């Protein structure tokens, strides 16, 4: 019948295929022959759905790297939702353990998921190659403006006297990051974290709603999320988990150390590669991510997303993670929630 349609179709198919295979064309290797790795397009995985913190970090990173022409191959961001990142790790640590063209973004849940008993991930950061830390945030202890707690020490004294009289809320389930952060100071002062009353909500937004509506006495949440409420005079921040005081709205807020609790908690975000990564590929990403952290495009992204840049190279990052894992294991064990 209409033969020409077949031709058009064939052409379309071929076109589609060549367009879709993107930078994976055979010429790519020639262009980069001087450098070797990377010879193919690289994928950055955000182990969550579109729109979350990991996803935003991965996309911001891909955008800045491309804009600054720091990488000659094309970069794509992929979402792999499921089990708070556990689904992705199970696949990555087995099937992609030697694939240097797939990196991923993560934060403290990478450690916590591996340590906790329920919803455990059999794979942790030791099954990856930590490449760099890119950003950080801190936790904040927040009460309503009219709360009787003016200082963290008041709250801790009450918790010590009777751990069950204060309703502590957070944005995620027990055994997760918000929970660990919430009980950290009381735990450090010798209160049994199992006795504390922790009410989990779906996300930081709902936790703040519970606080404002009088359904929680204190919440632990990301410091970057509360400055607006502080400015509006709705809440008071008792302490932040940073080593030094923060800038901006939270300048007047003491750190945990100043409040008499010798600890800190950093919500880091970083980039990881597969466990079996060649020295060449590792060195490539170390250099590239270092240049990224100093680039103007990355500055822009940090500003747009209200993140604080905090670059650590692979070795420092690895050392930092070892320390973090120990701290988290101790506290989860104490709570009876460690594996």
């Amino acid at each position, binding site marked *: 019948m209409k033969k020409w349609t077949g031709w058009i179709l064939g052409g379309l198919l071929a076109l589609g295929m060549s367009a879709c295979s993107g930078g994976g064309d055979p010429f790519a290797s020639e262009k980069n022959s001087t450098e070797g790795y990377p010879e193919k397009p690289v994928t950055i995985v955000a182990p969550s759905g*579109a729109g979350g913190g990991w996803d935003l970090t991965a996309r911001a990173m891909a955008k800045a790297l491309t804009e600054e022409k720091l990488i000659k191959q094309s970069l794509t961001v992929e979402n792999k939702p499921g089990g708070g990142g556990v689904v992705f790790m199970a696949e990555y640590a087995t099937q992609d353990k030697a694939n240097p063209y797939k990196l991923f973004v993560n934060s403290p849940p990478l450690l916590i998921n591996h340590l906790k008993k329920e919803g455990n991930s059999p794979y942790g950061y030791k099954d990856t190659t930590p490449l760099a830390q890119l950003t950080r945030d801190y936790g904040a202890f927040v009460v309503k403006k009219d709360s009787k707690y003016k200082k963290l020490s008041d709250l801790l004294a009450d918790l010590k006297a009777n751990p069950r009289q204060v309703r502590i809320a957070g944005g995620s389930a027990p055994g997760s990051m918000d929970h660990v952060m919430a009980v950290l100071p009381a735990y450090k002062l010798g209160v049994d974290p199992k006795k504390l009353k922790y009410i*989990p909500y779906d996300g930081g937004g709902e936790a703040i709603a519970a606080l404002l509506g009088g359904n929680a006495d204190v919440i632990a949440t990301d410091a970057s999320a509360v400055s607006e409420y502080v400015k509006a005079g709705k809440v008071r921040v008792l302490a932040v988990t940073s080593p030094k005081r923060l800038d901006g709205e939270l300048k007047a807020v003491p750190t945990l150390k100043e409040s008499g609790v010798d600890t800190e908690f950093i919500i880091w975000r970083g980039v990881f590669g597969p466990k079996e990564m060649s020295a060449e590929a590792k060195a490539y990403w170390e250099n590239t991510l270092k240049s990224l952290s100093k680039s103007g495009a990355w500055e822009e992204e940090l500003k*747009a997303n209200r993140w604080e840049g905090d670059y650590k190279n692979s070795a420092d990052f690895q050392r930092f993670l070892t320390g973090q894992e120990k701290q988290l294991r101790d506290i989860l064990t104490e709570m009876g929630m460690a594996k």
Partner: protein
Amino acid sequence: MESLEYLMKGFLVAFQWHNLLFAFVGVLIGTAVGVLPGIGPMSGVALLIPVSASLTAGMGPEEAAASSIILLAGIYYGAMYGGSTTSILLNTPGESSSVVTALDGYQMARQGRAGNALAIAAIGSFVAGVVSLIGLVLLAQPLSEMALMFGPAEYFSLMVLGLCAVSGLAGRSMTKALIMTVFGLLLGTIGVDNVSGVARFTFDQPVLYQGLEFLTVAVGLFALGEVFNTVLEGGGENEKAGKVGKVTLSRQDLKQSAAPIARGSLLGFFIGTLPGAGATMASFFSYITEKKWSKQPERFGKGAIEGVAGPESANNAASGGAMIPLLTLGIPGSGTTAILMGALIMYNVQPGPLLFEEHPYVAWGLIASMFIGNVMLLVLNYPLVKVFARIIDTPPKYLIPLIIAISIFGVYAVQVNLFDLIVLVVCGLLGYILARHDYPLAPVVLGLVLGPMIEYNMRRALTASDGDFSIFVEKPISLFFLLAALLWLTVPWLMKARGKRVVINEEA
């Protein structure tokens, strides 16, 4: 009034030609995305954030923020509307809030009244959009404070009331409807329990840690179930599902729909302001209310136009109501508004108590654009109704494999997981078998949505009260809902006992 003055300024922002264009493009893309089952408003908006960012690049920061949020809000409304289109035409809810629309909408389409169903959905959505806009302008502040008073105890009681409403979804057998509800609630317990952090019924499989995805189950039960039904019952040959009827609504249609639209709009708006409850609850409540108030409840489930008009108005009004906690408190009430909030933050606009003071340009521009978006939805969709309705005239030879392919694409695109596709097919088979034997499917879906909310809120409340159950009756709002639920269950029986003829879904 100060707000009106601001609103006028907002309209000036929204009426700038490029913002009109953005609203139009947003509504258009949103409708297209919403038509895909599986990809609801939430993933639609999330996926289009980068596109909107590149479209608004090169503008000043405030203008770029206003324009892109107008675009994204357009996508939100468009997707809400697009979801109902497939519910009506293909029995395929695009998102959770259009599940109930499928109940009567699809029956209408089978009777050749697809055009009427789509038209009333468009009109209802428009009216609801206007109602929620007025509500937003006048009541934003008091309502945001009311929404905050909703603690775990209040949510629990509201959900219990919602669950009682399930009885309204029964077919001939109440027992079967209850079995389906409990089955849905049980499916909802799979996954890591949010309150204790304990993994339940996951068999240590990471894919189950976050539970069964609602949309996967709904698309499977409804869309694939119907496809399998068509093939097995021989509809795949040449029996036309029914011609696209006249698109003009009769006076009878309008008369029957007017009150449901009004009730649905109000109900939807108020429920929408509660974080977490949202559009799904609103549309369910509206459907149940209409059935309860109707003089002929037996028409429901068989193509009653009220069953489309009410819920469609309610879910659209709810998306307007959901803007209240987002804009005034910075608290996103749903997944979609959470993503809108993320987008605002990207433009350095922090939604929250200070939004209206610090960024009036963005806030009022957005509110005004909601109105414009709704007008555009109507303008765009009313003529398109005919085109859309043609879809069901596609020969089954092509239509059936395409519906399967679209369902698989929609689910995979959001979940990126083969496991969800297996769940999809299993749910399809289950949906076919169950529906065939008069086991209603909507209660499964409702149970799956409400189950975790009921359970978590109950346990949150009990954690706070140290296990004291009296917390549910001590709080006035909670007590009110519990009493309403009690009345809901007892009144029909009492009336029956007094000899009044009331239709009760006992075994016929």
